[in-house]
């Protein structure tokens, strides 16, 4: 059966070419790309199915069934269930960096990452093959590269980020336009003066020689446990490199390590002729960006920050009595890279559900003034498993053009968030919206549409107490009209009067029988 063998052959050859580890992950944030990807990956399944191998005549259908049955196991390796990066491409100017920055790389390796070192101008450079990304993260330790080798360019790097992958860019005084333009596209502007460095005459690191104060002991760190870890970084971070700034309107970028108020950016060897364009705390030394698809980017103005030399050296900030045996660099770099590669601060939310109080199923529509309960699950990735996320600031909106209800959710500390509220007295198409944007965390944006209808015709109150005088008025009018006609008729025809009386009694009985609320008026028929 050759016709059937062909797809299978193709399948196996494809499998050989594809790297065994699965490149993709975090489908949650890819939106509708997620489903597509999932499907493709099930074809290029890394685990060979033994049955198909051993029985070349196996029907295609069996192959399908097997692939599908394996899907739950396979999906474990690439699904949003494990958001931490696995394979990282490191691009270097030259391979000496591999040893001079080995502490950083070793720490990554020890945390389970596969590092693939390549020269930045390697002509075989490629991030993807057959539409699949080969890597989950990219580290650009090649500040001076003018152009990448192979199929890599700025657009490819940005596409890599836009499809949800992470990036570390380190620059220094030799930073090329290429690196700067990558940073600009991510929202970080390096100082345009190519010879400028960050100078700080007060916050410099004390060293043996009285240098030009470009080696800075920076300690203006962002106050965020999720980015920098729970352990406080005591020692200053050594930094020598160029400054960059962030656009104030850019809500996605954060200064992780910023310059002290006395820092400025200028050429240390030239005389300062005009005021420096970047000064004080506007200077960012290290920034992180979390894109809207939750891809994370770290941009550092100094490559040396990651070097073994800085990590090991002792540090004393000028004017400060305390001298540290070891600089804060190692801790800083490790913690930021943990955040960057989604070992921390990665949330997933789902299972948004709501129900009417006292009912079990999720209704398709609410009525105004219904009481409802709302639930959502939020978990945080701890590096190897999903842990319940505990916070007291998660809110749900009941939203129709503007939030009509805004409630803080309470959690049971097992990942389940819950609240209950009354539907407002407004009908329309509402949404349950959970918009959670907390510094350093994955931004969560969930919504679920739900229409709210007005009362049905028989859901209104049938008899309103305040209206009893009106009811009385109409019923007495009816009664006396009957009476009037009765006497009018009895004067002429007795039988007619009897009919009248009978009809009157019938009407009273009918009205009495139908006094129940919500009964259709003609049910007696």
């Amino acid at each position, binding site marked *: 059966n050759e016709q059937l063998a062909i797809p299978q052959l193709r399948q196996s050859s494809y499998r050989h070419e594809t790297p065994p580890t699965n490149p993709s992950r975090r489908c949650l944030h890819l939106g509708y790309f997620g489903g597509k990807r999932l499907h493709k990956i099930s074809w290029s399944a890394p685990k060979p199915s033994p049955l198909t191998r051993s029985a070349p005549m196996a029907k295609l259908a069996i192959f399908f069934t097997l692939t599908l049955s394996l899907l739950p196991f396979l999906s474990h390796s690439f699904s949003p269930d494990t958001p931490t990066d696995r394979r990282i491409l490191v691009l270097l100017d030259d391979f000496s960096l591999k040893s001079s920055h080995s502490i950083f790389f070793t720490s990554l390796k020890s945390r389970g990452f596969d590092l693939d070192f390549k020269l930045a101008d390697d*002509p*075989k*450079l*490629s991030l993807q093959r057959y539409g699949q990304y080969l890597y989950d993260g990219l580290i650009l330790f090649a500040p001076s590269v003018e*152009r990448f080798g*192979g*199929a890599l*360019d*700025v*657009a490819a790097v*940005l596409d890599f*980020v*836009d499809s949800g992958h992470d990036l570390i860019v380190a620059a220094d005084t030799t930073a090329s*336009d*290429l690196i*700067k*333009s990558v*940073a*600009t*596209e*991510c*929202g*970080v*502007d390096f100082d*345009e003066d190519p010879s400028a460095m960050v100078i700080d005459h007060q916050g410099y690191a004390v060293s043996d020689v009285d240098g030009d104060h470009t080696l800075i002991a920076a300690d203006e760190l962002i106050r965020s446990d999720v980015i920098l870890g729970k352990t406080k970084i005591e020692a200053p971070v050594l930094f020598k490199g160029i400054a960059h700034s*962030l*656009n104030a*309107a*850019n*809500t*996605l*970028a954060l200064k992780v390590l910023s310059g002290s108020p006395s820092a400025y950016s200028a050429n240390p060897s030239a005389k300062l002729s005009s005021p420096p364009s970047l000064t004080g705390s506007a200077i960012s030394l290290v920034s992180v*960006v979390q*894109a*809207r*698809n939750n*891809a994370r980017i770290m941009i550092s103005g100094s490559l040396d920050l990651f070097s073994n030399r800085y990590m090991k050296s002792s540090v004393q900030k000028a004017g400060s009595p305390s001298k540290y045996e070891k600089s804060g660099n190692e801790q800083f770099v490790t913690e930021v890279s943990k955040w960057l590669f989604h070992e921390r601060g990665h949330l997933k939310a789902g299972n948004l559900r709501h129900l009417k109080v006292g009912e079990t199923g999720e209704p398709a*529509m609410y009525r105004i003034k219904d009481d409802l309960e709302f639930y959502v699950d939020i978990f945080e990735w701890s590096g190897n498993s999903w842990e319940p996320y505990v916070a007291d600031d998660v809110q749900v909106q009941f939203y*129709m*053009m503007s939030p009509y209800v805004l409630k803080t959710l309470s959690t049971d500390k097992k990942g389940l968030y819950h609240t209950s509220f009354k539907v407002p007295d407004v*009908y*329309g*198409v*509402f*949404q349950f919206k959970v918009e959670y944007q907390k510094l350093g965390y994955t931004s969560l944006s969930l919504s679920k*549409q739900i*229409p709210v*209808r*007005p009362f*049905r*015709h028989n859901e209104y109150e049938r008899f309103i107490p305040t209206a009893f005088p009106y009811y009385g008025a109409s019923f007495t009018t009816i009664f006396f009209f009957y009476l009037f006609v009765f006497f009018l008729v009895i004067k002429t025809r007795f039988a007619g009067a009897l009919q009248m009386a009978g009809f009157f009694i019938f009407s009273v009985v009918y009205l009495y029988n139908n006094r129940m609320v919500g009964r*259709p008026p003609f049910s007696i028929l």
Partner: protein
Amino acid sequence: MASPESAVNGPTMTAGAASKSLRNAFGGVIAFIILVLIGVLAFSIRLFSVIKYESVIHEFDPYFNYRVTQFLSKNGIYDFWNWFDDRTWYPLGRVIGGTVYPGLTLTAGTIWKVVNSLNIPLSVETVCVFTAPIFSAFASWAAYLLTKEVKGPGAGLTAAALLAMVPSYISRSVAGSYDNEAVAIFALVFTFYLYIKTLNTGSLFYATLNALAYFYMVCSWGGYTFIINLIPMHVLLCIVTGRYSSRLYIAYAPLVVLGTLLASLVPVVGFNAVLTSEHFASFLVFIIIHVVALAYYIKGILSPKMFKVAVTLVVSVGLAVCCAVIAILIAVVASSPTKGWSGRSLTLLDPTYASKYIPIIASVSEHQPPTWPSYFMDINVLAFLVPAGIIACFMPLTDSSSFVILYIVTSVYFSGVMVRLMLVLAPAACILSGIALSEAFNVLTRSIKFQLPGIAGNPSIAVRMWRKENGSSTVVAPNDIPKTEEAAKEKPAKKNRKKEKENVEKKPTPSKTEKRLLVLPLEASVIAVLLLVLLGAFYVVHCVWAAAEAYSAPSIVLTSHSNDGGLHVFDDFREAYSWLSHNTDVDDKVASWWDYGYQTTAMANRTVLVDNNTWNNTHIATVGTAMSSPEKQAWEIFHSLDVKYVLVVFGGVVGYPSDDINKFLWMVRIGGGVFPHIKEPDYLRDGQYRIDAQATPTMLNCLMYKLSYFRFVETDGKGFDRVRRTEIGKKHFKLTHFEEVFTTHHWMVRIYKLKPQRNRIRGKTKKSKSSRSVSSKRDVRGKRNPWH
């Protein structure tokens, strides 16, 4: 146009009673057959659209009615009543049950149910398509009844035949035009008939039926306010001209009481039936008629002298009370900003009102005043016959004929305000033309008959009428229905009928006055008859042409004839809607101008922001503003409303004139009415609306221009717009926030998708030479080897 009573005309009527009744029976059978044929004509003349195109629902509003009917047939009446539709007016939603006139839907739903319970498996769509033709047959019959009440069966049959094919009515009731007017015209004419019938007979039975017919009209169409204002006007006219009678009271008072009670049962009317000024006239006249009735009663029991004293007393006290009441009423009414009138009614009273204050009403093409040719197009020769009919109604002037005169006068005015209300004029024009034609034929055929040798001895002298015959037929009690009908049948035959007032007073003394009958020369009569027949023939030809060519296009399918006679079909709308229904998510929101809202929900089953039920001006203005804004602002507006797709209609490629660019100024006006930063002059160059190189930058950068003309230059290389007959101003541009996802075969519908928000925010550094050089490098590399 045969008048059966012509058979019972003439001096030979002294024949025995037996032969007379036989003739009457024969005339009745003929009349019945003619009526059936008229019904068939009315139905079949409206089938051109089905034959030429297909059995589809037409235009915009019918799609909504169709969708509602489907819902009704699926879910039953209670769910229909309580239907909250979450697929339109996103995110506000619309309570369909409380905002829709349910008459049409219930009618079609009932027909569907009956037909299906008889095991005739018709689809809801088929029933909807054919509802309008069926009801136009009913309307013709109702016109027959009404005219018969006014001027006898001959005029009735003529009017019915005219109404069966009047183009104005055809335009709203061809097969597939499933709109409220389809049943409402029948209800309107039938209500008038029952009113006249009650007025002629004084029967409480007909008065009750009249209230029920009015209820059906209220269920069917907002035009019911025409009835509830016209009838009081007529009542007032009767009172003022001294025609008050107990029959008038019976015709009017139950209608107001029962009719108002019933009208308030319709959810969409509800308390409006007693609160709004549209209904105010009826209540005022209701009070007046009671005062008048009381006055007549008191006059009857008091001596004339006492009566005078009473009048002075009552008038002085009554005036004071009236002044107080009216002052209070005026204060109440004036406290509301629109003086208690709805915008549409105010537009009718003051034709310039809408264009000044409510652009949303003025923007609808059917709310524009008609042009003169449209009268000739829509009612054709009736326009010339109507004056003759009015004259005929004045001799003699009866309660019923005065009603018809009032009807035509008011409807002519209303049709002059809004082209849509031509539809109300059409029945009136048909009735009066029927009367005119019938009278003319009467006179002419009688003249011929008198002058034909052997029939009358002395044709040129005046002829005496047979007084005794008259007397016996008019003395009967007004409640005796069949005899009164007979009397009515004979009425037109007698030119010298005694005065109506005597009839009102029920004085049995027949007047013995003699009048000369008009007898024309034989040749003139023959020629005139021939000319009238020719006129009728022209009318028929015109109507058939209008039905076949002008009014049968379903407007969702367009056709054009090429030079070699070939037929080209443009089915772009359905193409686009089916693309939407197959390629978008079921909960996606589609933004378009409100014209296409009903069709999008009905055909594509997608949620829309605004639709043809223009109940929320602000929401429409929001969409108008988005369409008139630059791309970025428009994207923000649409994004805030969860819109995924934007649909625009563009006729520039094929020359389809009613596209969005031509409607665009209304979007600007309506948007600017709510959001003042949109200013109409920004879109006009020297007061001229243009899209060529002279157009303003605001115009060339607004979303509507961009979405309409995106890639347009690729069609012919020049960007020549065949609707505006000019080359467009801005030809080459890119869209930053929208992406084209679908354009139909003839480019008539273009669908765009909102691009998602940018993943990253770029830095502020000017993208100077550095980045450009990078991109150029990239290009070079890309060409060299795409794989490495």
